[in-house]
C-alpha cells in the first residue's frame, strides 16, 4: 500500500503542446463536472479500493484495499506480474470499471457516483488512454481518428478547426505526411503514435497507457515513449502507465508494484 502525499512533482496546470491556440483556449467544461483542481490537491486520490469480479458464482478479488495519490504532471509506472491487477487499476482510474468498495477521485471528481454518460464526459475532458493494441478505428483515416477525439471533447469547434488541430497533433508525432492513411496502411509504431496523438489531442490532465510498447519493436517503442513523455511534459499531464519493461519503468517519477491485487511502492528505481 503506497501513499504519496508529499510528492515533489510540480503542479503544472497550464498545458502547452505547441498546438493551435484555438483548441487550447476553447476547451469546454461540461457543467455537470468540475475537473479543475486546486494547487496541492492530488490529481488522483484512490482510497481503500477493493475490486471483486464474479466468475460464474465464484467471487474473484482483483484489488485489495488499494490507496494511491498521484499529483498533477507526475509520471508513475505500475509494474507487476500478469494477473496482479495492474490493468484493473488502470481501468478504475479511467472510470471504465467501478470499485466494489472504496473511492476513486480524479481531478476532484468522485467517479464512484457518476453515471456511464457522466463518466464519458469525465474521460473526454480529463484523460487520454493509450492501448497496447492501439485500437484505432480501421475505417477512419489517421486524421479522422485523432479528430474524432477532439470533436467529442470540443463539439463547439468547427470541422476545419478540428482537422487543423488534429493535423498539428499528428505532425507533432511525426505523421504529418500520413494524415489520410487508414490504420491498415500504417506500421505498428505509426499506429501507436496516432493513438498517442488521439489521447493527447484534447489536452487531458492525465494519460493512462497500458503497456504502450508491448506490441512494438525496440526502436518504435522508444520513439513512442519519448513522444509520450514529451507531450505529457509540455501539457503538464500526469502519466500513469503499465509496463513489464524495467527500463521503461525506471524512467517514471515513481514505480508502483502490484502483487496479487495489493499495491506497494518501489521507489528504488527499476524493477
Amino acid at each position, binding site marked *: 500500500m503506497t501513499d504519496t502525499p508529499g510528492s515533489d512533482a510540480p503542479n503544472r496546470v497550464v498545458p502547452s503542446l505547441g498546438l493551435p491556440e484555438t483548441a487550447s483556449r476553447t476547451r469546454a467544461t461540461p457543467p455537470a463536472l468540475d475537473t479543475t483542481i486546486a494547487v496541492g490537491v492530488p490529481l488522483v486520490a484512490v482510497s481503500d479500493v477493493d475490486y471483486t469480479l464474479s466468475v460464474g458464482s465464484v467471487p474473484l478479488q482483483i484489488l485489495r484495499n488499494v490507496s494511491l495519490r498521484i499529483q498533477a504532471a507526475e509520471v508513475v509506472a505500475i509494474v507487476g506480474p500478469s494477473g496482479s491487477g495492474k*490493468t484493473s487499476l*488502470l*481501468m478504475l482510474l*479511467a472510470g*471504465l*470499471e467501478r470499485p466494489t468498495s472504496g473511492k476513486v477521485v480524479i481531478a476532484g471528481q468522485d467517479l464512484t457516483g457518476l453515471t*456511464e*454518460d457522466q463518466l*464519458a*464526459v*469525465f*474521460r*473526454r*475532458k480529463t484523460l*487520454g*488512454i493509450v*492501448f497496447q*493494441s492501439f*485500437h*484505432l*478505428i*480501421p*475505417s*477512419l483515416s489517421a486524421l*479522422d481518428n485523432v479528430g*474524432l*477525439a477532439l*470533436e*467529442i*471533447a470540443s*463539439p*463547439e469547434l468547427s*470541422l476545419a478547426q*478540428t482537422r487543423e488541430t488534429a493535423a498539428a497533433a499528428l505532425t507533432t508525432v511525426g505523421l504529418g505526411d500520413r494524415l489520410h492513411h487508414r490504420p491498415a496502411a500504417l506500421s505498428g509504431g505509426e499506429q501507436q503514435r496516432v493513438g498517442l496523438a*488521439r*489521447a493527447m489531442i*484534447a489536452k487531458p490532465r492525465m494519460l493512462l497507457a*497500458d503497456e504502450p510498447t508491448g506490441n512494438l519493436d525496440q526502436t518504435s517503442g522508444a520513439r513512442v515513449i519519448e513522444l509520450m513523455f514529451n507531450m505529457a511534459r509540455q501539457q503538464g499531464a500526469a502519466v500513469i502507465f503499465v509496463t513489464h519493461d524495467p527500463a521503461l519503468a525506471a524512467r517514471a517519477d515513481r514505480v508502483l508494484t502490484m502483487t496479487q491485487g495489493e499495491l506497494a511502492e518501489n521507489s528504488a528505481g527499476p524493477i
Partner: protein
Amino acid sequence: MRGIWTAIRIGLLDMRGDFRRFGMLIVCLAVGTALIAGVSSVGASIKQAVEQDAAILMGGDLELSRDDRPANAGELAKMATFGRVSTVIETNVRAEWDAHDAFVDLVSVGNTYPLLGKVSSPQLPAEQKPFDFLGLRDGSYGALVDPVMLDQLGIKIGDIFQLGGTPFQARGALGKLPDSAVRGFRLGLTALISTDGFATLSDMTSPLPGLGTLYRYKLLPTTHGDGSLQAAVVAAIGDAGWTIRTPSDGLGPMVHYYDLFMRFLVIVGLASLLIGGVSVWTGISAYVSERANVIAVMRSIGAERARIFVHFFAQVTTLALIGVGLGLLVGASIGFLVLPVVAQSIGVNLPNSFHAQPLLVAAAIGLVTAFAFSYLPLQQALNIKPMILFRSKGLASPPFEWRTLVGSVQVIPVILAAAAFIWLAIVMTNDLILVCAFALVSAIAVILFRLAIGVGIVALRSLQESANPILRRALRAISGSNSDAPSVVISVGMALATLIVVLVLEVNLSNEYLGASVFDAPTFVASDLFKDEAATLRSMQAKDSDIVDFTATPMLRGSVTSVGEAPASSISPRGPEALFLLSGDIPLTYRQELPSTSKLVEGKWWPPDYQGEPLVSLHESLRSGLGIKLGDKVSFNIFGDTVTATVANFRDYSWQGGIDFLVTFSPGALEGYPATLLGAVTAAAGHEDAVQRSLATALPDVRFIAIGETLKQITSALGQLSLAASLVGGLAVGNGLLVLIGSLAAGRQQRRSDAVITKVLGASRFEVIAALVVQYLLLAAFAAVLATAFGIAIAWILTMVLLDVDFALNGSVLAAVDAGAIAIVGLLGATTVLSALRTAPARLLRAM
C-alpha cells in the same frame, strides 16, 4: 446540433468498407418494400378502375339473372319502370361448317345492348347497335365471332355457318364485350348474336352435360341509382328465383381470383418485410458485434451513449434509405409492368397511373421495419464497455438485457415503431384482423423459437457428452455460454417458417386457379356415345399412340321429384347449381370411384364393389342451395320410375376439368336403365389435329367437341396469375434464403477466432470444418422442425380463413425446402471460417 452532424459525418465515414456486408440487408429491405409498393400500386389501380367504371364493367347499375327461364312480360314491364333494360342470354351451343365444329359460348343481346360501354369489333360501325348490325340480312341473322372460331371452322367474315343448327352469317370478328369482366368463366369461343337470332336456333342441346342457359337483364335506372334501387327492384319483382347484383358485388370470378392474388401478395409482402426485419436484426447485431471495438474506443475517448447511438443510427438509416429507395423503384416499376397483364386477365381497363399513397406507405413500412429491428441491436451497442479494449480485441458484445429494456423508457421507441408498423400495415391492407393476427403470430413465433432453443440447450447440457469428438465439439458449441444458437435458430426458424407459409399458400392458390386436373383435361368430348362406339374408341386408343387417354362415363337423364319430404316444386333453390338441379331433366351418371376431377368435401365415397341401397353424391353447393345434408333422401324420376337415393357425400369439382356431373349415383342403382356414354379423348400434345381427323374418319356420326383448346384459353389468364404467384413466392423464398445466409453473419468473427485457435491446438482443417458443419446442421434441423410445424399451421389458418380456398400440402416441396435450408445453413456455417483456415494461423493470431 453541430454535435449531431459531426456524429453523423463520422458515422458515415465509419461505414467505408462495410457496404458489402450490408448487401443482403439492403436486398431484404428492398424486396419487402418492392413487394408492398408493387402490390399496393396495382391494388390502387384496380380499386380506382373498379370504383370508377363498375357500372360499365357490369353493363348497368343493376343486373337480374336466372337460369331456369327468361323474364316474362310482366317482369320485363316492372323492370322497365325503373329505367332502361337490356337483355343478355348466355348459353353454349355447337357451331359447324363442313367437317369442322366449334364449341361456342353464345351471347345473345337485345336491341338496347349495351347500355354502357361498347362492343369491340372492327366490322361493327361505331354508330350502330349490335342488335341492328346482327339482324336478318339475306335470309340469315348475323354473328360476331371470336377470331379463333373463324380459324377453327375454316370460314371467313361473310361466310354462312351453322350455329345451334341454324345458319348464321359471320358478320365480323368479336374483340371484347364491355361487360366481359362480370361474365365469369365461360366455356367455349364467344359468339355474339341478337335475341331475334337466338329465337331461331333449332338445336339448343347443350354440347356438354351441366351447362345451362343464363338470362341476364341489365338495368340502367333513369334516375341515378342509389342504395334503395336494389330493394325497390326486389320488392317490385317479388320472385326469389332472381339473382340481383350491383356493380360492387357484380365483378366476376376473375376479379375474385385477383383479389385472392392480392391477399396472397399482401401476406408475402408483410412476411418479406418481417424476414427482412430479421435480416436487419441479424445484420446489425453482427455488425455491432464486429464493431464492438470501435464502440469501445469511442466510449474510451468520452463519447456518450447518445453519440454512439447517432453514429450507428446514421449508418442504419443510410442503409435503410438505400434499401427502401431501391424497393420503391422496383415496386413502382412492377406496377407499371404488370398492370397490362392484370388488366387483360381480369378484363378491366387499367390505365397506367401513379399512386403516391401506396408508395409512401411502402416506404414508411420499410423504414419503420428497419428502425424497429435495428433499434434493439443499437441499444445493445450502447452497453458495450470500453474495458474490452484492455482485455481483448473485442469480439463479444454484451448479451441483450431484455428485462432492463422492458422496464426502461428505452422500450418506448420499440412500442411506437411496432404501433406505427401495425397502423401502416392496416392502411395498406385495410384489414385490421389480418395485420393484428400477423403481428401476434410473429411475436409467438419468436417466443416459441427462443423458448425451444433454450429448452434444447438446457437438455444438451444435461446429456452425457458424445464419444465422437466432432459431435462433442459441435454440441459443446451449441450449448456453450457464448453460443449463437438462439440467434441462428430464431432467424433461420423465422425465415424458414415464412418460406413454408408462402410456399403452401402459393400451392393452394395455384390449385384454386388451375385446378388439380387442369393438365389432364380432355382434348375432345362427345356425348351420347353408344357402347360399340366407345369400344371403337378404346381400340383406337390401344393402337394409336396419339390418343393418350379415353374415358367413357355412363349418362342418362332424369328429374328431381323430391328432396327429403318436400316435393321439388315446393323448393326455392338458391344458386345456379340448385336451380339447374330442379330445372327438369338433367344428366345423371353412376360411378364406382371418385372421378379424378372431383374431391370430397363432406362424407365418404362408397366402396368400388358397393351394391347396397342407392347412394348419391352431390355437388357441394347444393348443401346451401337446397338446404340438403348428408343422409337426406333425394328422389328422381328416371324413365318413369321413382329412384330414391341417400346423400352419401358432397364433392367439389374443378370447372377446368371440363366435364363432371352434378349428380352421381352409387353402382347398382341405374345400371338397369338405358344409358349412353359421355366420352372424353385426350390427344398427345401437338397431335390434336391428327387425332381429330382419325376420330372423324372412324366415327363420322359422332360430333367431337374440341374442348381442350377452349380450356387452355380460359386457363391461360389464370395461369398468368398463378405464374405471378409463383414468381412472387419465389422472390420471397429467395429473400428468405438471403436471411438464412445473413443469419450466419452473427458470430462470424468469433467462429473464425475459435477455428484458428482450434487449428493451432492441433485439430485438422477437416475436424474444424466438420464440427462446424455438424453444429449448424443440427441447429438448422432443429429450426426446420419447429418452422415446418409452425409454418404449416399458420398456412392452414391463412388458407382457410383469409384465402378461403381448399388446403393442400406439397410434402415433397416442403421437404426439399427444409433439406435445402438445412444444407445451406450447415455449409455456410462452415464456409465462414474457410478463409481463416486457409490463412497461416500466425497471421491471424497476431490480428486477434
